[in-house]
């Protein structure tokens, strides 16, 4: 589904990603962990080209996103993204937040878009918030709305960039719960997170990034219980 080949990303002199190769299959849930500054968010943001790679290819469902001729806007309709800071549109109601993109792309008419949005809001128990503005929601509610806003586009893959890092501790659970539900539905995901328990529970594969490279990867049980890479061992001993 996503094929990353020889990916490099520099910010000026700083080499953030160094020759990354990564293949994500349909239905996989790849969790990316690692120390801050290791390039994990940059890698995720390269997947939908919010960050333009310095070199290398990102191929999604057979389309090379790094080809200048590719219409990224169309490709991004199939890739949902959830941000650390939620990034709901503060000048739009919750319902408008959710229907904006589907309406813009003419995927649905107004009635269909509203119906889809309400069904998704109902699913997360926030149907009564449809006509309020984001500023009245709690952090956990905002992030759950941000997730279903991405889902409203009917994406094939969801990218989560530290979805719980900006939340108060008591709100982390509700957001992780929603992501787990998506996982159970078979959604393909790439998740950058600091929640190790969650990584282990929801991931089908865990990546450890260190200094711009994928230093280790394995299925969760082996990854956490029997780490081989010394840096990973060191990292896990600090965070677990």
């Amino acid at each position, binding site marked *: 589904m996503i094929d990353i080949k020889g990916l490099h990303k520099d910010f000026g002199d700083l080499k953030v990603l160094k020759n990354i190769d990564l293949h994500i299959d349909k239905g996989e849930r790849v969790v990316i962990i690692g120390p801050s500054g290791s390039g994990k968010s940059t890698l995720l943001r390269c997947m939908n080209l*919010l960050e*333009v790679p310095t070199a290398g290819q990102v191929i999604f469902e057979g389309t090379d996103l790094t080809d200048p001729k590719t219409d990224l806007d169309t490709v*991004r309709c199939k890739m949902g*993204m959830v*941000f650390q*800071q939620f990034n709901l549109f503060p000048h739009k109601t919750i319902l408008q937040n959710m229907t904006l993109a589907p309406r813009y792309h003419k995927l649905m008419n107004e009635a269909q878009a509203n119906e889809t949005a309400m069904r998704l809001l109902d699913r997360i128990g926030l149907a009564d918030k449809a006509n309020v503005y984001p500023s009245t929601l709690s952090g956990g509610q905002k992030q759950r709305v*941000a997730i279903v806003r991405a889902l409203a586009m009917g994406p094939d893959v969801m990218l989560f960039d530290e979805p719980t890092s900006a939340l108060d501790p008591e709100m982390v659970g509700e957001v992780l719960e929603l992501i787990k539900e998506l996982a159970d539905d078979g959604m393909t995901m790439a998740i950058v997170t600091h929640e190790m328990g969650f990584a282990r529970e929801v991931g089908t594969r865990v990546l450890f990034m260190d200094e711009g490279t994928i230093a280790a990867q394995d299925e969760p049980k082996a990854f956490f219980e029997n780490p081989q890479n010394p840096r990973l061992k060191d990292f896990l001993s600090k965070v677990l």
Partner: protein
Amino acid sequence: MFEALKEGFIRTFIRDNRYKVFVQGFKNTIIITLTAAVIGILIGIVVSLIHALAQSARNKKRKTPGAMVLNVLDKICAAYVALMRGTPLAIQLMIMTFIIMGGFPNKVIVCCIAFGVNSGAYVSEVIRGGIASVDIGQTEAGRSLGLSELATLRLIVLPQAVKNILPALCNEGIAVLKETSICGLISVVDLTRAGDLIRSRTMSPYFTLITVALIYFILVFGLSKAVGRLERRLAQSDRH
């Protein structure tokens, strides 16, 4: 004392229908201010739009012909802004009158254009600052939902930027109103010039100059109050 005031009033306003000169001057001041403000806003929008698009083209690092044209236009706009801000308005007005539009009979129109072109530089900076004040996450959220560059600007960024732009724009309008007082340099009878004409006839500076100052003050103070109210109104919509 009262007699002297009465005499001064009559000499300044009543004799030879001198109030008509003030009315004429006031009319010209208003015409020039409003027209210059409209011209300034139009130029400002175009310049800041070019800047926003050129910048995002630079971020994408794609060297398409369109991007290169934008880059050149952006450079020209930057030079224009630097020139307008780096030279005295009085000189700009004279250059416009005697060089660029030399021989153009209607000097009021020359004033409108000179002040408008000058104001455009400041307006473009106001708009640029307003756009920059919107969190980059808003743009990223828009783009990740497949909205194009322009659609993100139009639907997501600008509606939020307006909150910061509008009050600053009104302040720029107030500044233009005060700046028009140099129209007399090219013999256009604006409010200031009208006062000066009457003063030179009556040889009594008090009534004329204080009247003129008072009219400017009432206009500027009233507008400033209105801007303050607008700012509070816009701030309120943050909270909903």
